Every structure is written in structure tokens, then in C-alpha cells.
């Protein structure tokens, strides 16, 4: 028997040996069926149990996180909308003070104009000329019979002449009076126009006021929704936070480009100040770090400036300062920023000088000498660099605004993403747990497949002694239920 044939229970007959071994193995496996089933089931439970507990815990943690995120989001939203309402009320107050403060004067003006128009109207009322007393006398005289009396005819002629002249005079007076009334009426026009203009002004101001109140109403509705902790408000705030995050990120990326240009402008001249041979790490020179520090200090000054101007609210301590201190801080930050901008402009000039010097040296070292150019065009880059060096610190100062947005929105965005990640992790753990349980069942079934022959025999042996089919079915069902409950 060679070394490889030691397992052959039937020498020189592999098939019979295998068959015998299989039968013996099957018998052993059948004997160990129940303990093995228990072992596989226990292993499945051992793996799936902690995974399911972990999944449940993660899910609870994710829910807790979501609740906390919601609370923070709503609190932040409440604060923001509250501030906006406050600002709207301030604007409204200013509008009322500005526009309606002059309303009594406007009213007085309107009343004066109306009174004047009324008076003028009265003046232009048509007054019928009083009936002359002499009309009756003339009538009496007209009834006198002339009968050819020369005396009477003369008197009547005289009367006719007098009456005619008086009639002409009365007519002229009457026409003059009408002319005066027309003039008064003509004088009404500017008053009417003034009245119209004044009324239009009042209308415009009232419309503006109405618009502002509508805006306040809108903000108030939003505030109420936030206070009521509605899902709509939460969703709106989350979307707004994501938008803010994207915008702030974009602006910060642009600002980083500006900071990089700024760094390039001052890194070389800084080596003239702190030396070019010192290194912080193998690839980072001290001069470069110094340039970075200057840029960071500029950004910090910008931050303090924005804080003291109350544009940003990153530092409650600064926001709580009294007006005097706040103004003082603002001026200090501005002065430092201007000083740093001046230093940067000087450094930019120095950079240009250093580069020119280096170029001159390289030209002198080269075999072919280059012709020197000293035109005004060559000075444009120098001026541009200086200008850029002066402007960039101020531009960097405005980083504070997107930075604040980024910080606040990162809390929300990060919270939402983290909660999502934890949920996904819980889902994966749950799937793994279920997979482990199912796998244990599959292994149990597989085990039974391997020992199918003894099981068949067992079935045949037990079949005649088996109870009624219905009872057997119930027993099988019960076993299935037990399996499932495991």
C-alpha cells in the first residue's frame, strides 16, 4: 500500500472504498445531525444578532441625529427669519418716520389748498345786478302822455339819453366782473395740479408701505411655520442650507484663487525678510509660511472688520460690544488692513525688483546679451502687481461673508449627510444580519442533503408509525414556525 492509498478500506478497489467511507461518513453525520443543526443555527444567530442590534442602534442614532439636526435647523432658521423680520420692521419704521411724519404738514397743506379753492369758488359766484330803483321811475315816466308837448318830449329825450349811457356803463361793469371771475377760475389750475401731485405722493407712499407690510406678512408666515416645526419649513430650510453651502463653497473657491495669487505675489519678497534658506518641512520654506501667515492675518482682519460692522456674526463677543468699543475695533481692524495692504504693495514692488535683478544676472551670465528695454510698457506689470498687492487684501476681507455662510450651512449639510450615511450603514448591517441568518438555514438544508440516504431510511422507518397526515402537517408547520422564530 502506497502512501496515497492509506484511506482505502477495500484494497485495490477505490470505488468500493469510497462507497464504504461515504456510508460510514453519512452514518456519523446523521448521528450528529441535531447538534450540528443547533451549531449552525447558533452560529447564524451569533453573527446576525449583533449585526441586527447594531443596525437598530444605528437607525436610532440616525433618527436622533435627524431630530437634533431638525432642532438646530429650525432654531437657526427661526433666528434668521426673526432677524429678517426685525430688519423689515426697522425699514418699515424708518419709512413710516420718513413718510408719515410729514403727513400732518401734508394734510394742513391739503386743507389750505382746499380752503383757498373754496374761497375762490365763492368769489367767482355770479351775483345778479341789483334791480335799479330808477326803473320804476322810468316806467312811470314812460306812461306819461306826451301829447305833443315839447316840454315832455324834451324831458323824455333827456331821460332816454341818460338811461342809454347808464345802460352802457352797467353793461361794461357786468363784463368786467365776469372777466375777473374768469381770472379767478384760471387761478384754480395750479392749485388743482398741486392737489393732484400731493395726492399722488400720498398714494405712492402708502403703496410702498403696503408692499413692505406684505413682505413682513410673508416673513411672519414663514416664522410661524418654523415655530410650528412643520415639515415644509424644515424642507425649505434644508434646501436653502444646501444652496447656501454650494454658493459659499463656490465663492470660497474663487477667494482661494485670489489668496493663491496673493501668496505668489509676496512669497518671493518674504525670502528677503526671513531668508530663503530656512525650511519648515522638506518642501515648505519659512518665507512661504511667512507669506501665508500674512495672508491669514489679512483674512482675520477682514473677519474682524466685518464682525465689527455687524455684517457677519461669527463672534458673539464682538457683536455684544458697546457701540464705542465696536467703532474702535472697526477702526483698528481697518487701519491694520490698510497697513497690510500697503506692505503687500511694497512687497509686490520688491518682487518685481528681485525678478528684474535675477534676470539681469542671468543675462550677464548668458553668452548672448539681451538688449535692455526701459520703456513705459515695461513698467505696467510693476504697477499692476503693486495695485493687485494693495487691492487683494481688501478683496480677501470679504471672505468673512461666505465663510460664515459656509460654517452655518456645513452644520446642516454635514448633519444631513452624516444621518444619511448612518442610515445606509444600518441598512447594510441589517442586510448582513439577514444574510447570516438565511445562510445558516441554507447550510442546515445542505447538511440534510448530504445525509439524504439516512434521512430517507428514517422516513421509511417512521412512516408506518406516523400519526394522521393532518397532525403530521401541523407538526411540520410547528417546526417551521420554530425555525423562523429562531
Amino acid at each position: 500500500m502506497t502512501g496515497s492509498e492509506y484511506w482505502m478500506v477495500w484494497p485495490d478497489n477505490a470505488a468500493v472504498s469510497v462507497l464504504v467511507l461515504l456510508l460510514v461518513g453519512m452514518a456519523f453525520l446523521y448521528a450528529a445531525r441535531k447538534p450540528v443543526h443547533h451549531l449552525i443555527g447558533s452560529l447564524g444567530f451569533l453573527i446576525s444578532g449583533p449585526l441586527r442590534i447594531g443596525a437598530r442602534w444605528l437607525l436610532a442614532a440616525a433618527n436622533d441625529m435627524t431630530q437634533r439636526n431638525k432642532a438646530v435647523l429650525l432654531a437657526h432658521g427661526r433666528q434668521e427669519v426673526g432677524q429678517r423680520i426685525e430688519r423689515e420692521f426697522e425699514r418699515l419704521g424708518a419709512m413710516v418716520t420718513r413718510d408719515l411724519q410729514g403727513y400732518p404738514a401734508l394734510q394742513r397743506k391739503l386743507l389750505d389748498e382746499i380752503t383757498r379753492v373754496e374761497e375762490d369758488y365763492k368769489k367767482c359766484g355770479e351775483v345778479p345786478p341789483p334791480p335799479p330803483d330808477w326803473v320804476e321811475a322810468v316806467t312811470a315816466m314812460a306812461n306819461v302822455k306826451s301829447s305833443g308837448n315839447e316840454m315832455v318830449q324834451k324831458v323824455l329825450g333827456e331821460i332816454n339819453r341818460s338811461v342809454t349811457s347808464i345802460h352802457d356803463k352797467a353793461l361794461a361793469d357786468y363784463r368786467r366782473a365776469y372777466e375777473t371771475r374768469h381770472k379767478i377760475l384760471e387761478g384754480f389750475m395750479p392749485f388743482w395740479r398741486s392737489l393732484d401731485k400731493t395726492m399722488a405722493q400720498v398714494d405712492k407712499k402708502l403703496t410702498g408701505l403696503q408692499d413692505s407690510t406684505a413682505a413682513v406678512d410673508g416673513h411672519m408666515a414663514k416664522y410661524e411655520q418654523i415655530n410650528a416645526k412643520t415639515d415644509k419649513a424644515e424642507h425649505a430650510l434644508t434646501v436653502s442650507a444646501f444652496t447656501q453651502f454650494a454658493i459659499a463653497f463656490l465663492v470660497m473657491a474663487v477667494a482661494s484663487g485670489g489668496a493663491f495669487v496673493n501668496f505668489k505675489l509676496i512669497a518671493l519678497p518674504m525670502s528677503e525678510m526671513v531668508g530663503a534658506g530656512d525650511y519648515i518641512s522638506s518642501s515648505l520654506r519659512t518665507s512661504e509660511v511667512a507669506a501665508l501667515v500674512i495672508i491669514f492675518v489679512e483674512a482675520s482682519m477682514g473677519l474682524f472688520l466685518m464682525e465689527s460692522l455687524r455684517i457677519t456674526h461669527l463672534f458673539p463677543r464682538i457683536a455684544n460690544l458697546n457701540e464705542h468699543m465696536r467703532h474702535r475695533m472697526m477702526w483698528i481692524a481697518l487701519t491694520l488692513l490698510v497697513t497690510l495692504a500697503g506692505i503687500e504693495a511694497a512687497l509686490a514692488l520688491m518682487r518685481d525688483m528681485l525678478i528684474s535683478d535675477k534676470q539681469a544676472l542671468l543675462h550677464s551670465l548668458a553668452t548672448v546679451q539681451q538688449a535692455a528695454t526701459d520703456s513705459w510698457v515695461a513698467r505696467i506689470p510693476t504697477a499692476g502687481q503693486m495695485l493687485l498687492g494693495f487691492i487683494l487684501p481688501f478683496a480677501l476681507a470679504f471672505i468673512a461673508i461666505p465663510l460664515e455662510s459656509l460654517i452655518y450651512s456645513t452644520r446642516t449639510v454635514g448633519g444631513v449627510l452624516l444621518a444619511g450615511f448612518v442610515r445606509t450603514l444600518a441598512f447594510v448591517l441589517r442586510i448582513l444580519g439577514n444574510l447570516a441568518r438565511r445562510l445558516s438555514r441554507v447550510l442546515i438544508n445542505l447538511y440534510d442533503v448530504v445525509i439524504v440516504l439516512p434521512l430517507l431510511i428514517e422516513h421509511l422507518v417512521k412512516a408506518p408509525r406516523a400519526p394522521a397526515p393532518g397532525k403530521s402537517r401541523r407538526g411540520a408547520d410547528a417546526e417551521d414556525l420554530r425555525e423562523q422564530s429562531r
Partner: protein
Amino acid sequence: MIKRLFLAALLLVGMAVAGCGDSRSHSNAVYMLVDTSGTYAQEAGKAQLIINYLLGTLQAGDSLMVARVTSRSFSEKDIIAKATFDSRPSQANAQKRAFKDQIDAYIKTVRGTAYTDITGGLIQGAQFLNETGAGTKTIIIFSDMQEELDKATIRNFPISLKNIRIIAVNVVKLKTDNIDPRRYLGRLDAWQKRVEGAGASEWRVINDLERLDAIFSKS
């Protein structure tokens, strides 16, 4: 929270600037040996080109020394010019101009010597480079690498070139090399074995003067 972060950032920057600097030296030190023996003295113009390249490439804080290879080169008298450039770039540029003037003056008056003591120059170069404490130390040998010593000069002993890069530049072929190129190749091999045996970190030959950038590139 923000305040804490800001303070931590400030602290980090402060620490970085104040005392967490990299103590290793990152400067370069180059010692150039210019062979002036026999007919090779005619190549001095090319040496000037290489020195100009080095002056244009070396940064503030780096060191450059130029010495001639004579019959006995282990002497300070053979040093033509040496300078450690100031850490301020403007001052370094001024030093480089002065250095160039010194070299120009020397090139005009260069004379050939009877023998060629490269080993002596290497020993002296190694000493000077080690004194600089530079991070990267390089000896450039501008020579045909044909060492010729007089009978009294003793150089057949082990030398130390530990952590020094050795670069042979413009190793021209001699008439005898043209007859049997194995002499040339054998000469270079012998030098490579010798400098590597002495602990040199690198051995390189650059014959194309258009490729001088290989002087500072790491192999």
C-alpha cells in the same frame, strides 16, 4: 466652537513659525574642480559656461567653490573663488556677480600644469563640502579624468567621499582613447569604482553641456 477652531489654527501657525522648523539643511554646496593640466587648459572656456550655469541655478543660502586641478591640488591656494550666498536673494545676486568677475579674471590668465592631481582636489573638496553642512554636496570634476602624478606625490590611499555626489563633466577623449576606446571606458569605470568605494552617493558623467540640468537632478 468657531472661536476654539480659530485659536487652534493660530496656535498651529504660531508653532510652525516659532519652533517646529525642519532642522535638516536643504541647501546645496558645489565644489567644482577645473582641470588646467596640459592641453585640457584650452577647455577653460567651457568651464566658465558651467560655472555661469551654476551661478544661475544655485539659490540663496547655497555654496559654490571653484578650484583648479594642478600638479598637487590638495592646497587652499588652488581655490579660485568660493562663496556661500546670502539668504537674501538681492545680496546673493550681488555675490554671484562678484563671483563671476573673479572667474572671468582667472579664465583670462589660466595656464596649463605639468601633472593632474584629481584625487588631491577631491580630498580637499570633500573637506570643504563637509564644513558647509549643506544638505546636498556635489563635486563637479571638469576634467578628462586622466590623473597624472609626479613621483613624490602620494595619493594611493583610501579617501572618504561619504554622501557626496561626484559628477564628471566634459570628459573628453584623448588621442589614445580614440585608438582604443576601452582605455576611455576603463578609465571611467576605474573612477566610478574608486568614488563609490569612497562612499560617494552618486557617480555621473555629463559630456553634453546642453544637459547641465542633470547636475542637480537626482538619479
